[in-house]
């Protein structure tokens, strides 16, 4: 007898890339969202345009857990190619729905799950005439089947279709027909709803569904960025798409059609970085979205911007490396790369958002930091945050916000100076004032990546060189005060165990903490929001005997940074790693922590 799982299930849909399943899956997501269920959607897709297997995984959980759980309660197996592994993945007691138009081989079955066959192709072929429509509607029909099996409100589905196809009523009708085909077949043939099902539990009215790239692109608009330069690369491409979309919406002059933004699709990542530097150098806020391979290519310019002190914002939507790796899979593998990108002594501030909401906020913060510190700043998102659908509290904006442009001298300031020197730090924060081209003849200076002294002149003098490179360390100390503080979630009991994580590993840790508590394992949790670390990170490490460092890469890169920056005993930092390309499940954290504690106890 399958256990009852109301508002606590994972629905996974296996389809073929390019068959139009995305809109069907989005329909399901939104319907569950409108029923008030906390949900999260993960698109597990191939690096391919058409033909390879793709999955969409929706987790609904009344407690609000956002990570993957490792379970599959309901599998919709639409792809014959992956049927065997999809069948194997269903959790005991779960359900599998397949298209019974073509019979499956008898040996491909399991006794511990319920297999439900629906002749989806047959139903659609009978009802729809055009070949392409039949393929598309087969997907919409499984939405109908699921609405019956899971108890999804069909009025919500109708409303969603009407909103989506507002001006195309014929599409609303055909989609509804497909939904009804599936719905009717399910109610006629199975006991509906299943013990695994959804029940309305609110309206989620303070929440929205958004992906991190859309949020980051929107953040760039709100930050007042005007120049975006980029070279297309998965999984960062949709960030620039978002910036373009919202600029088109908000930054196009209604009467003249003039654009108050300039997006340059560069010839490569090297050029994208050069464009970002050039635009920031003249005083326009400029950024580039990329992924790991792009950072590798941009590294020469990143070192230039560090040494010549040019504000610049880089979004690294991380994907699986090394090399081309797996472009459509997620990892947190570029934290070391970005922290020290480029040759010579270089260090860069990083911001580490954990969800789309933070992508929005940190996009804005990145421009402020970059201009305040006159240095490259990285926002390290990843494919999971960037391209998946997240339910987040509605974004808020403070209309009192004004950009922090840092020390930029205006023409009238320059006029008062006897002479302007670019690299002279007058107040001891490690940051010297800059001027913008075009403003004043006395403000002119020469920007160079070669040795320069505090007056801005070329130098090969050992003391003059050292003076600049040492001042950059003073600036680094200033950066520590400006990077967002880590977020502490103390355990309910006093404990000597700590967990440190960042970015998209957050959800898995939060869920694991609750689970571990049921096993009487208590841990304080510190989420790092940026680099350089401030004092609170070192304190946390010092205050705990064992600190688990949870991250999504093989080498424990955050752990390495902690060892480098906190003078801690490396032995007490225990790596908990997940790096197969799928978003980290909470199970990984639970196992990593309890196994280590068990070994210690033994």
């Amino acid at each position: 007898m399958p256990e009852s799982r109301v508002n606590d299930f994972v629905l996974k849909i296996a389809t073929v890339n390019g068959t139009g399943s995305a809109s069907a899956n989005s329909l399901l997501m939104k319907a569950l969202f409108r029923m008030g269920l906390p949900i999260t959607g993960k698109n597990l897709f191939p690096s391919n345009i058409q033909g390879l297997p793709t999955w969409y995984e929706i987790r609904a959980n009344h407690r609000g857990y956002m990570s993957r759980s490792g379970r599959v309660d309901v599998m919709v197996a639409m792809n014959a190619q992956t049927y065997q592994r999809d069948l194997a993945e269903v959790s005991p007691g779960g359900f599998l729905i397949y298209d019974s138009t073509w019979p499956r081989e008898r040996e491909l079955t399991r006794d511990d799950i319920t297999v439900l066959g629906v002749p989806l192709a047959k139903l659609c072929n009978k009802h729809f005439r055009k070949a392409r429509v039949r393929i598309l509607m087969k997907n919409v029909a499984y939405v109908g089947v699921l609405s019956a099996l899971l108890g999804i409100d069909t009025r919500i589905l109708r409303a969603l279709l009407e909103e989506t196809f507002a001006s195309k009523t014929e599409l609303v009708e055909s989609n509804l027909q497909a939904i009804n085909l599936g719905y009717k077949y399910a109610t006629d043939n199975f006991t509906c709803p299943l013990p695994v099902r959804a029940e309305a539990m609110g309206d989620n009215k303070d929440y929205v569904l958004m992906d991190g790239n859309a949020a980051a692109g929107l953040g760039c608009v709100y930050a007042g960025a005007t120049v975006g330069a980029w070279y297309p690369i998965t999984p960062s491409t949709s960030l620039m798409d978002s910036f373009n979309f919202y600029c088109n919406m908000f930054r196009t002059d209604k009467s003249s059609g003039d654009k108050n933004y300039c997006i340059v699709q560069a010839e490569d990542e090297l050029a994208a970085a050069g464009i970002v530097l050039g635009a920031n150098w003249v005083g326009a806020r400029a950024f580039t979205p990329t992924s790991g391979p792009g950072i590798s290519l941009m590294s020469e310019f990143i070192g230039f911007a560090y040494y010549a002190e040019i504000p610049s914002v880089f979004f690294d939507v991380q994907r699986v490396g090394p090399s081309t790796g797996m472009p459509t899979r997620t990892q947190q593998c570029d934290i070391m790369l970005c922290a020290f990108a480029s040759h010579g002594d270089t260090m860069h501030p990083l911001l580490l958002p954990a969800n789309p909401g933070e992508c929005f906020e940190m996009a804005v913060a990145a421009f402020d930091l970059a201009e305040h510190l006159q240095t490259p700043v990285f926002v390290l998102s990843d494919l999971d945050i960037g391209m998946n659908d997240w339910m987040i509290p509605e974004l808020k904006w403070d209309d009192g916000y004004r950009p922090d442009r840092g020390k930029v001298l205006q023409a009238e300031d320059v006029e008062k100076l006897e002479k302007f020197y670019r690299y002279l730090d007058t107040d001891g924060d490690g940051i010297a004032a800059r001027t913008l081209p075009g403003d004043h003849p006395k403000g002119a200076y020469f920007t160079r990546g070669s040795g320069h002294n505090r007056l801005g002149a070329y130098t090969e003098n050992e003391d003059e060189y050292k003076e600049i490179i040492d001042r950059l360390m003073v600036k680094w100390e200033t950066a520590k005060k400006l990077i967002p503080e880590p977020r502490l979630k103390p355990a309910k009991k006093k404990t000597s165990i700590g967990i440190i994580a960042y970015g998209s590993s957050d959800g898995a840790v939060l869920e694991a903490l609750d689970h571990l508590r049921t096993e009487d394992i208590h841990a304080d949790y510190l989420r790092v929001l940026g680099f350089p670390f401030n004092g609170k990170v070192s304190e946390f490490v010092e205050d705990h005997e064992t600190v688990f460092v949870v991250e999504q890469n093989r080498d424990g890169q955050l752990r390495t940074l902690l060892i480098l920056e906190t003078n801690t005993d490396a032995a007490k930092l225990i790596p908990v790693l997940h790096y197969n390309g799928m978003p980290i499940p909470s199970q990984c954290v639970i196992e990593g922590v309890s196994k280590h504690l068990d070994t210690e106890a033994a």
Partner: protein
Amino acid sequence: MTYITKPRIDLPGQSTNKIGLLRRDYEGVLSTLCAGCGHDSITAAIVQAFWELSIPPEKVVKLSGIGCSSKTPAYFISGAHGFNSVHGRMPSVATGALAGNRDLVCIGVSGDGDSLSIGFGQFGHAVRRNINMLYIIENNGVYGLTKGQFSASADKGSKAKRGEINQWKNIDSVSTAISMGGSFAARSFSGDREQLVTLIKAGVMHPGCAILDVVSPCVTFNDHLGSTKSYLYTRDHYHPALETDFVAPANEITTSYAEGESTVVELHDGSKLLLKKADSGYDATNRSKVLRYLEQQRARGEVVTGLLFINAELPEMHLIYGTSKTAMKDLRFDKLNPGSLALAELQSRMR
């Protein structure tokens, strides 16, 4: 030693330009290049041209990559912001600078190694985007700072100082720029000050990417017998295909020419370029004929100079993008930020 400030000598009788500046106001610090380097002549021509055009120094940005040529922006217009970028990447920085502030007058100085090898891609894309800049390639066929390796512009059969013969066909920036659809391509010689000054002025005023390749002999590594980029060889094979006059806005064209001898190209600011044919039938506005002519002359080893191709009607980057007339960096924040109400409205569609 580029930190040595050039002594400012007040000579009696110096004239000022329209904005009251002396020629020396367009100079920079003392050059550290070898005595006799062609690049210093180009620097002097830049100083002269910008002074004659009366461009306020602070409106100018001067950018470069890496190499001997790329050191030169320090030697002219000290009142302009300079940017000595990384090897071969000057065009992207210029693209960004102009994207952020379209009101700037942009001059990029590059070399044959910087633009035709490591930076060949960026050179091509600056031309393709037709960004509004003067792009000078100081062309000596050789890598100077690393002591005399051939560059991609070295002619096949040219002899290195140590005797090696170049086996590779050269890349010609002028014909490359024209074949890629560029709007302005010119060649000059560092030894011809008069032509050079005119072409720099034409390139600055041209509303797009003006490629100006200047043969600029390297006295240390490439000025020997057997080199095709030496002073001697260039003087012997120097061949102006046409002469150019730059006529500032509001000035009249005073000389008269017989029908068919000259062409007038009008630029958007009202200035005019008067192209006088030296070779009969040369038409600097006919792309395919120009390319054929250049190929013929190349086969004969001639160094063809002049404003070899121009199309002042091709739109520059901002016209294609449709960006606002106000420079990006000057847009007020309230024009850029949609505000809290718009954000709420936007999110009502995300549920």
